[in-house]
């Protein structure tokens, strides 16, 4: 579908029509979302890099996103993404012994976030989030409920995610379409040493349902560090898999390296203007 659209031109055309203002919307976690939104007219560029590596077979994956975020009205913001995913793996997958194969896919996404409650003024922050992704090999819809709370120098965030994904692949020359439903939950707690620096931990669980039954499940947990100034912010999260209650193999009984990676590392960088 994207072959017929000049994506960079479309992306920058959208950039040009959005009004100018400069306020940041920093994220203190790599995976868990927060309820805050950009104010009307504010805009921000976010660069995502997620390195995912290690399965029961040779597997390396790099997800990269460039995101343009903008405030639409009080409590409502939106964003457009350009996504690329590059995978390098054993061509035989779980049946290791094949040759190294690489593939790259592209996608565009659009997200909307609406803040219902403010995490400082109200008892806790609450936001609804929706995102759609269309790419060369997949179609995805994602919905989130986001809750967070700031207690002096401590920020706590939690989100619950429901996702539908339809992806296509080629097997023996024929297109095969796979449908998956995912339920994810993210939680994070960050402590601020100053108004710029913060550190904390994140917890993520991913659950994949195929044909109505749970096929794969894993829990990740690890540290996160963040920095925010008036012009930029950055967040780095290390998320190793700590438990794989469903779908694991005999190689790693309590870990699921068939469907999920041993470790994910995500770096978010953002500039506002």
């Amino acid at each position, binding site marked *: 579908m994207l072959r017929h659209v000049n994506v960079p031109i479309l992306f920058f055309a959208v950039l040009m029509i959005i009004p100018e203002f400069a*306020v*940041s*919307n920093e994220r203190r976690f790599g995976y868990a979302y927060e309820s*805050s939104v950009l*104010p*009307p007219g*504010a805009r921000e560029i976010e660069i995502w890099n997620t390195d995912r590596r290690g399965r029961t077979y040779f597997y390396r994956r790099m997800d990269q996103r460039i995101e343009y975020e903008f405030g639409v009205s*009080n409590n409502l913001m939106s964003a457009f993404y350009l996504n690329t995913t590059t995978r390098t793996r054993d061509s035989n997958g779980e049946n290791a012994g094949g040759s190294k194969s690489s593939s790259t896919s592209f996608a565009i996404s659009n997200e909307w976030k609406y803040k219902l409650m*403010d*995490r*400082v*003024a*109200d*008892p*806790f922050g609450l936001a609804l989030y929706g995102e759609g992704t269309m790419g060369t090999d997949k179609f995805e819809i994602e919905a989130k409920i986001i*809750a967070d*709370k*700031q*207690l*002096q120098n401590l920020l*706590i965030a*939690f989100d619950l995610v429901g996702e539908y994904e339809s992806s296509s692949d080629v097997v023996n020359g024929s297109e095969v379409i796979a449908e998956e439903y995912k339920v994810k*939950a993210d*939680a994070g707690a960050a402590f601020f040493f100053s*108004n710029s620096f913060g550190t904390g931990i994140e917890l993520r*669980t991913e659950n994949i349902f195929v044909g109505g039954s749970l096929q794969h499940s894993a829990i990740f947990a690890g540290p996160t560090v963040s920095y925010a100034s008036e012009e930029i912010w950055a967040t780095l999260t290390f998320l190793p898999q700590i438990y794989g209650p469903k779908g694991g193999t005999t190689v790693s009984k309590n870990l699921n390296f068939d469907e999920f990676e041993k470790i994910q590392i995500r770096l978010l960088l953002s500039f506002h203007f």
Partner: protein
Amino acid sequence: MKRSAISVILFFLGCSSSLPIPTASDLLEHSNNGDVVTVEELKEDRSLYIAKCSGCHGLYLPSQYSGKEWQTILPMMNEKSRLSETEAIRIKRYIFLYSMH
């Protein structure tokens, strides 16, 4: 897993606002400064802070900065947000009541 999720939900439901809501004891502290105000007026100051400042950025807790730091921050913000003189004074009054001493 279910227990953890329920704990998280109960945590959020049991929260009160992090942004201080003025009480009679705050009034006493404020009156020591020589300014005579009512609790209702201080609550209105708080509402003004939320209404005028959250439109442009995430709200900061007054205690995140010292009074000296707010002395630098507030004039810059007043200029950007084009507050009236009365609004600026009222927001400053609320912020300073709870700023880091």
